[in-house]
């Protein structure tokens, strides 16, 4: 399951973006208020809840049988994120999930003049009052995270994406985050395959297709807007007694979204037999890998079908 954390300045539209994102993705949104109302009452007394509302230091206090309140929150949120995808807004969630590579960390900011204007409109206060309110809110927020985690929440390296809402609408921000989320899911899918094997990454920005068959096949994939990578991995399939790789196989195409490797075999039967052996070995050694072989006959029927400008 996935996690998005959202750190936001007051009047940066961060709350609106978190809510809209939650609605768009159908993921639960958990804020500091929700933590206090729905999670912490499990272990905190009424007095302790009051203290947690008032004092950041209280999160570091031992609760009865559960370690500190912070440890309880950390554990509970990680457990929750195992079961479902969530959006976490505030309370230093970007630090809690800092080492979680499935998590996406977003920071929403806006220039002071925009935030002042928004606050004035919302609360009907003067410029000076608005500036003071924002200054105090920023200070409290920074101090809260520093007290609990010992880090500066304004440090950009805690975030994957920083959005300035001076000239971006809530919808545009939500669209940016969802686009990033989609790309990230594809990347993680590729990385997971590499983790437990000695597969060699072979990605390059500008693939050089080797023959006309590959060029035509790439065109068909493009026609269907199916994302592909050319020979992105080299799978070792034979080793000598000293463990040196003596034979490897690199399927022609990887369809990122569909987690499928495709090997084209449009040459002589002699080579096809050799290639079939390699594919068989690849499937034996890497059982999680999904490889499809397109034979000469299938390839020509594909080309024939698509050249007449018809769909399937």
């Amino acid at each position, binding site marked *: 399951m996935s996690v998005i954390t959202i750190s936001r300045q007051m009047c940066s539209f961060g709350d609106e973006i978190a809510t809209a994102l939650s*609605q*768009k*993705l*159908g993921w639960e949104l958990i804020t500091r208020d929700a933590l206090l109302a729905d999670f912490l009452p499990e272990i905190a007394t009424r007095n302790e809840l009051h203290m947690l509302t008032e004092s950041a230091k209280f999160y570091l206090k031992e609760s009865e049988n559960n370690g500190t309140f912070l440890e309880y929150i950390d554990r509970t949120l990680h457990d929750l994120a195992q079961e479902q995808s969530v959006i976490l807004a505030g309370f230093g969630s970007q630090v809690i999930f800092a080492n979680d590579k499935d998590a996406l960390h977003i920071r929403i900011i806006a220039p002071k003049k925009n935030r002042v204007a928004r606050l004035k409109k919302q609360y009907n206060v003067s410029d000076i009052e608005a500036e003071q309110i924002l200054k105090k809110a920023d200070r409290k927020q920074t101090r809260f995270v520093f007290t609990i985690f010992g880090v500066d929440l304004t440090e950009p390296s805690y975030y994957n994406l920083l959005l300035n809402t001076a000239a971006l609408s809530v919808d545009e921000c939500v669209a940016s985050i*969802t686009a990033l989320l*989609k790309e990230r899911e594809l990347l993680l899918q590729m990385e997971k395959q590499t983790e437990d094997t000695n597969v060699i990454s072979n990605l390059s920005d500008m693939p050089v297709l080797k023959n006309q068959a590959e060029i*035509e096949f790439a*065109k*068909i*994939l*493009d*026609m*269907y*807007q*199916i994302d592909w990578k050319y020979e992105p991995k080299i799978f070792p399939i034979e080793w000598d007694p000293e463990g040196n790789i003596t034979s490897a196989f690199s399927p022609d195409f990887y*369809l990122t*979204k*569909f*987690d*499928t490797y*495709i090997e084209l075999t449009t040459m002589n039967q002699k080579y096809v037999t050799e290639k079939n052996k390699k594919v068989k070995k690849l499937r034996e050694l890497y059982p999680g890998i*999904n490889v*499809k072989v*397109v034979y000469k006959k*299938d390839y020509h029927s*594909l080309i024939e079908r*698509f*050249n007449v*400008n*018809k*769909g*399937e």
Partner: protein
Amino acid sequence: MDLNYKRVAFTEEILKNRISELGAEISRDYAGKDLVLVSVLKGTLYFFADLTRAIDLPIRLDFISIGVYPNATNRTGAVRITKDLDIDISGKHVLVIEDIIRTGLTTGYLVQNLESRMPSSVKVCSLLVNPEQQLINVPIAYYGFRVPNAWLIGYGMDVNEKWRNVPYIVEVDKADL
């Protein structure tokens, strides 16, 4: 009808029984969920009509159609949606209904497109699948029958837009078309 065919591949009764089973499976799996069934026009015409009536849930129905447009820089053209959904599928479960999945390229394109609209899930139900031809690992959750490489028409499937209205599925010789 003046149709030369090799054999009847699936009779009306066989289709009806299998579709009834599929409807029951879908009703069980999606109970309590907000489900949208998407018919891929036009081949699913009769399958969609029969399947949706075999589902005992308050489902929503919508239609989508795709076509290939010529592209000046690529002689294979480009696939585009020619009739889009009317329903907003974000946060809803979507079941794409296909007549037959061969390479899976069309279905792959659709699944990719629908997933970008942030639904809760996108799965596929196809009356027929041909695993031998399948290139794309599309999420086929339900299928009626596996079929080999063959020319099949009827029950919505056509040749040059003809014979969709044959009430069963027949296998024909390419030479007879």
